[in-house]
């Protein structure tokens, strides 16, 4: 399932706020590990934040192999 623009936008806003980076520095196809300078545990932290926001539960394995915002948004959209 392809994520809606709104879902993607909300994820980018939350990631920017969570890691305190200017929103305009983030684009959907960014490798978030690299752009945000985070490790996989910090990515899991972000996932928790996103779960609270979207009121969903994502098992850890959903994030396996995901490193860009667009794919992350697709995974979240599938559970909305």
């Amino acid at each position, binding site marked *: 399932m392809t994520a809606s623009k709104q879902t993607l936008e909300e994820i980018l806003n939350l990631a920017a706020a969570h890691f305190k980076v200017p929103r305009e520095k983030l684009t959907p196809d960014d490798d978030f*590990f690299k752009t945000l300078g985070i490790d996989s545990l910090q990515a*899991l932290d972000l996932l*928790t934040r996103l779960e609270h926001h979207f009121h969903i539960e994502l*098992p*850890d394995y959903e994030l396996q192999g995901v490193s860009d915002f667009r794919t992350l948004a697709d995974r979240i959209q599938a559970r909305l």
Partner: protein
Amino acid sequence: MLNLDQYTCLGEALRDALDRWPNETCLIEADRDREKTRLTYSDFKEVALPLARALEDAEFGSDDRAAIIMSNQSKWLISAYAVFYRGGVLVPLDYKLTAAEHLQLLTHSKAKFLIVEYYLWRAIAQSPEFKNHKLKKVLVTEAPLGADLAGAHRWEDFRRKGDPGFIPREREDVACIVYSSGTGGRPKGCVLTHENYLEQCKSLTAWYPFWPGVRYLSILPTNHAIDFMVGFIGPFVCGACVVHLRTLRPEFVRDAFVRYKITYVALVPMILKNLERGLRAKFDELSAGKRFFLYRMIALNKALTRKQPKVGFSRKLLSQVHQGFGGELRAMFTGGAFVEPSTLQFFYDLGIPVANGYGLTEAGTSLTLNDLKPFRADTVGKPLPGVELRILNPDSDNIGEVAVHGKTVMSHYLDDPELTAQTIVDGWLVTGDLGRFDGNGHLQLFGRKKNMIVTEGGKNIYPEDIENAFDGLPVKEYCIFAANYLWPAKSLGREMLVLLLRLEPNQEFADALKQEIILRNRRLPDFKRVGGYLLCAKDFPRTASMKIKRNELAEDVRKVLGRAAVVEL
């Protein structure tokens, strides 16, 4: 603890453990903050024996190989027990590999049976290589009702009534085939015997004993040698309890320490750092007065535990910090990759010793470990009882290649006599790691002689295995090296992979090429990515069969280019 000298195989020791402590809890499994399973040793037996019987009825017996691809959970251990009960050989595979890599290792190991989680099986069954698999039976855990299992059986239904036949093995028989890495061209399947495991268990528990009531938090993947030993075999033969968490989210990991009053945990350096970061942030949030008081208490603890840890004293002095870990934590284990001494010291000063160790799959779980007599943050500890270490060809600083001899060293690499002969020489396993002993018998590591890196997540990455991700790159030729192999750093930090490029004559390094490299790199799992590239002015030296002569090429690069020439991606 069971007297392991009495046993010839893991199946026998585990079988006796279930009868020895029937009423002790052996397994707790939680998903986030929801407890899913709690089993006593007697409950464990009740669940495992019908599975062993079903395996028997499916003609699974002596030396048959069964692979497990699962995240850490109770069914992992129950399945492994049933395999050992039937005299089988376990092939624990890394659940984080791709489906294609899983299929490659299943083929290489010649596993006949597979026990796998549903979401992983779905990916494997959809893989193009799936049609060639040679599996006889597949058991899938946690499959939704009505799911298409592509010919597999539901693990939960795969059970039969009646006592299964127990098949004993000899000490020299194979217990496990564990892949130390090498999912690319040359899988490295370490063949480990029952003796390897029984002896390793004996030496580890001599320094860090388990007993009924001890709770070990199992976070490292159970397919990994460390968790297999300290998150399964060790606790079980001592009547202790293993706690599984189905998530690695830091907040639930922290919560599990408290909820289950964890005694021991093994962590990769990355998680350790994460814990340190969290604690430091909490300290910073304290009012100036409270923070001042806390740091005074930490300094006092440090002064009074210089010679040896005093767990009870530290728990009282720094009770709030210890309560944050459940109040029962005795030690954390780490190793596998470089750990900053400041991180180790930070925890030790809080009264939570982190036992840093050094090991490799080829030699069981661990070769050296900090014995805390006294604690040292700058070494990987002393050789464990029964492990003999030697430094080969030491230089003027006494640094040389570490070699190991002892009952924990693997038998051989599966189906690779050439690699075995290169690795085990006259009964000594050459590790490829550079080290030296200090005056107190502690081993210090100084980098690697071999072309590989160990990530902060504890994964071994061999450059050769990821080169095919750059197949067809529009350059004349390319090769990947570990930076510390090209430029020996005499330290274990700053590990990264470097892509060495040789351009076509008159080719410029264009932005399109850089973008292509970035794109290819991004398709790799984050821990396998190259950190930078380097342009080579000469053609690569090659053998008659056109293989790159890596040593010679590394030597050429070393002569003309330094680490500073690497352009970060």
